């Protein structure tokens, strides 16, 4: 048996798969024969947990992300004493990939959580003003993203899981300024579902919904978050660069594809 560390394995795969991808793209083909703006099979299952106030399992291709939404009580931020808070956290479980290690959150998992958070925050879909309990106490919504299998494009899978879980969320009853577990006032008001569309750039090509293999070969990545008709967050990551025209074309694609994904929730 040849023992090779995961980092070394990644470096070798990166070289091999980049060459393979460029050769295939020159023949107008993607590794899995998909069109450049096509998604893999998308599957959303809502209400998968009974212990959380909202939950969903999203799968895009082989990628799997579970989202659990829990309510809590918290001291509000000093500058917004009457507004509730929400936060998005992502956990890259070590079982999801040979390159995910146990330990403190990696920069990648923090970036993913913050991109999803920005989408939900800018879209203003959560009415934090309705989450006031009493002076010095507000409701908090914890949105936890559990990455369980890394088949590429974790950002879109996670945003999909989060939006689906929020649309499944019930608001708990508050009695005597305390949450009553298991008793609900009704569904969380969610006027829209912010989702993301992620592209990778290889040479002059930009491909939607990258496979793990395509991500390895990519120069950079562009994520466009949308609600119906609006862009709500963007993130370019990786070392390469993008032209304005390249960005604008993908914004149009993201607005269209975002609506198709929203219909699946």
């Amino acid at each position, binding site marked *: *048996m040849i*023992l*090779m*560390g*995961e980092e070394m394995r990644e470096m070798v795969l990166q070289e091999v798969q980049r060459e393979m991808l460029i050769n295939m793209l020159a023949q107008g083909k993607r590794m899995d024969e998909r069109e450049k703006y096509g998604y893999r099979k998308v*599957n959303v*299952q809502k209400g*998968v*947990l*009974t*212990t*959380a106030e909202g*939950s969903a*399992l999203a*799968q895009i291709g*082989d990628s*799997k992300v*579970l989202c*659990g*939404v*829990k*309510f*809590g009580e918290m001291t509000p931020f000093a500058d917004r004493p009457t507004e509730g808070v929400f936060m998005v*956290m992502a*956990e890259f*479980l*070590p*079982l*999801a*990939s*040979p390159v995910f290690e*146990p330990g403190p959150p990696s920069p990648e998992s923090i970036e993913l959580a913050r991109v999803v958070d920005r989408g939900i925050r800018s879209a203003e879909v959560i009415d934090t003003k309705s989450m006031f309990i009493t002076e010095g106490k507000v409701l*908090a919504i*914890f949105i*936890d993203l*559990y990455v*369980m*299998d*890394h*088949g590429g494009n974790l950002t879109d899978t996670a945003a999909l899981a989060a939006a689906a879980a929020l649309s499944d969320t019930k608001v708990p009853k508050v009695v005597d300024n305390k949450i009553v*577990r*298991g008793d609900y006032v009704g569904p969380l008001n969610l006027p829209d579902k912010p989702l993301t569309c992620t592209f990778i750039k290889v040479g002059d090509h930009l491909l939607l919904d990258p496979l*793990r293999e395509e991500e390895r070969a990519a120069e950079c990545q562009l994520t466009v978050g949308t609600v119906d008709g609006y862009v709500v967050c963007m993130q370019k990551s990786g070392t390469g660069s993008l032209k304005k025209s390249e960005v604008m074309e993908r914004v149009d694609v993201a607005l269209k594809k975002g609506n198709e994904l929203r219909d699946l929730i």
Partner: protein
Amino acid sequence: MVGSPAPDKPVLFQDGKRLDGRALDELRPLKIVAGVLKEADGSAYVEWGGNKVICGVYGPRECIPKHDANPYKALMKCRYTMSPFASLEEHGRSGPNRRSTEISKVIKEAYDSVVMTGEYPKTQIDIYVDVLQAEGGTRIAAIAAATVALASAGLPMKDMISGVAVGKADGQLVVDLGKAEDNFGESDMPIAFKHRSKEIVLMQMDGKLTPEELSANIDAAIEGAEKVYALQAEALRKSYDVTEKQEFRM
């Protein structure tokens, strides 16, 4: 075991049946699926009553840090953790804590006795278990998943491990404790066996039992574990059935 107990103790038995209508020696519904993850070398998903547990296995692979490597055998490692949304109560913290660190240790040691680690010197084998939803008996559900995940990773094992929690609630011997029986019962004893020899590879106990009760508990656990084994073997068999490719559902 999980979360903080409510102040009022519920009635644990009614008309000779348990809270959820089970007989004393009856297990909660148990579903095991092998090979649910693509990236992991081996994996399994288990739903046991209200428990939902996913397990992924990696290895044998390079041992990190290198100075931990054993020149004679593979190093078994286990990381059991509970999700922040696993319990009905408030949002928990993700990552390991004192409880999960102990559970990780006893799980790892159980498998160290069956996986043929001597075949893979200087390497490590990682068992990652994540409890997505908890309802009492999560370490035993983790064992149900980890055995199947290790086998589906193709690792040679001397035997399979299956277990069940037994205990005492309102003076009665019960098999596969639910959350209320766990919180309000007098004793809880998770226990796991090698399938063929019935040797104990994991055992923990809290509560107060006479030696006679303890002996009866172990006998009841052997029977319970046998039912778990049958489902583990079935899950593995199904995962090699190419005609029945199932998609992952929770």
